[in-house]
C-alpha cells in the first residue's frame, strides 16, 4: 500500500531534526525512526480517503483524509503533507498542514512551517514560534483523552523536575531591568 522500504542511516531523515527546544530532550524524527527498522511513506502524489492503521512509523507527504492509528509508532506530516483527520500515535511531528486532533502518548513536535487547526493532546508538546496554530494544547498527562486513547499505563510520564533553562529557572545572563514599585492595592 505504501512505499515501504528499509531505512539506512541517511534515509532516517525525512525531516530535519527539530530545532525547537523542549523539555525532557525530545525525541527527533531521526531518533524515533531508528527505533524501528521500517518506515512507510505516503508520497506527495498519493491521496488516501479512509483509516490508516499499522505497526510501523509513517511519513506523510501526500494527502490523508481519515483517522490514523499508529499508537506504538511515530507519524510525521512532512512539509508537503496534508492531513484532515485525528491522529493517534506514540510521537507526532508536524511540518505540513493538519486539521484535526493530534493525540500522542509521548510527544508532539510542531515545526515552524506547520499549519494546524485543531487540538493537541500529549504529555510533552513543543512548538516552534511562527507555527500557525488555532485550537487547544492539552499537556495534562492525566487528560481523559489520553486515557481513552492509550490507557493509563501507555502514557509517558512527565518529570516536572526536568525543566530546561527556558522553564522555571530564569537565566542569570538575561538582561534584567527591575524597577519595581508596588502601587496602592
Amino acid at each position: 500500500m505504501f512505499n515501504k522500504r528499509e531505512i539506512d542511516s541517511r534515509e532516517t531523515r525525512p525531516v530535519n531534526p527539530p530545532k525547537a527546544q523542549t523539555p525532557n530532550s525530545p525525541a527527533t524524527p531521526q531518533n524515533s525512526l531508528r527505533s524501528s527498522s521500517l518506515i512507510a511513506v505516503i508520497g506527495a502524489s498519493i491521496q488516501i480517503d479512509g483509516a490508516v492503521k499499522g505497526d510501523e512509523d509513517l511519513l506523510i507527504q501526500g494527502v490523508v483524509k481519515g483517522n490514523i492509528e499508529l499508537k506504538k509508532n511515530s507519524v510525521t506530516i512532512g512539509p508537503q503533507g496534508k492531513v484532515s483527520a485525528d491522529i493517534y500515535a506514540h510521537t507526532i511531528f508536524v511540518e505540513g498542514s493538519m486539521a484535526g486532533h493530534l493525540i500522542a502518548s509521548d510527544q508532539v513536535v510542531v515545526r515552524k512551517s506547520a499549519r494546524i487547526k485543531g487540538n493537541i493532546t500529549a504529555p510533552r508538546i513543543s512548538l516552534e514560534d511562527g507555527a500557525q496554530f488555532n485550537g487547544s494544547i492539552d499537556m495534562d498527562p492525566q487528560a481523559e483523552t489520553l486515557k481513552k486513547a492509550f490507557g493509563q499505563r501507555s502514557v509517558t510520564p512527565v518529570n516536572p523536575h526536568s525543566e530546561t533553562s527556558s522553564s522555571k529557572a530564569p537565566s542569570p545572563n538575561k538582561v534584567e531591568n527591575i524597577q519595581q514599585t508596588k502601587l496602592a492595592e
Partner: protein
Amino acid sequence: MINASIKGLNPVTQVTVRTPLFKERMLSLGQAQRNVIIDLGPARSSTLAALHGTRCRVDIINLPELLSHYPFDSDSDALMQALSQRILLSDMEQVELVLCWTLLNYLDPIQLQELMFQLDKRLAPSAKIHALIGSSSTLLPKEPSAVCAEGYEHLLIESKEAPLYPSPGYSSGSLEKNMQGFKSERTMLLSNGMREYIFSRQ
C-alpha cells in the same frame, strides 16, 4: 535601553521586565489539579515551556491574528463573532487563568467589553486575568508586541517596529468599568512603565 525604546529612539525594541504577578499566577498552578488557561496571544514555545510540569490545557485564541483581519475601523461585530467562535470552539471546561499579555491595549472600550462578555462564559468563579497595561504616556508599536515568558520571573517584550502610537492609557477605574464583573485585585508598576494587573471576579 528601556526609556529609549519607549520614546521610539530605538527601532528594535526588546525589553525584559520582571513580572511578579505573572510569577505568582504561574506558581499557583498546581501539579495536582488540572488547570485550563486561555492564552489570547499566538502559541509560543516559551509559554509551553513555562507550563511544563503542570497539568494544564492552553486554549490559544491568537487575538493579534484576529485584529489583523478585523482592524479598528472595520466591523466590530465581525471581530467579536470570530472571537466568540474561538473562545467557545472547544468544550466548556472552566478556565482558571487568562493571559492577555499587552493585548488589551489594542482594544477600544467597546471591544474590551465584548471580549469580557465572551470570556465570562468560560471563566470559573475563581478565575484570574493577567494583563500588562500601558499608561497614557506609554507608546506602543502599531502591531502587538511578541511577549515571551522567560521562566516564571520575567517576560520578554519584543517589537519589530518602534513604539510610536499612544496607549489608550486605561486606568484601574476605566478597566474595571469596561471589564464588567471584574475588579483589579493587584497591580504593580513595571520597569518599562507598564502596569501589571491581576483581575478577579467582584
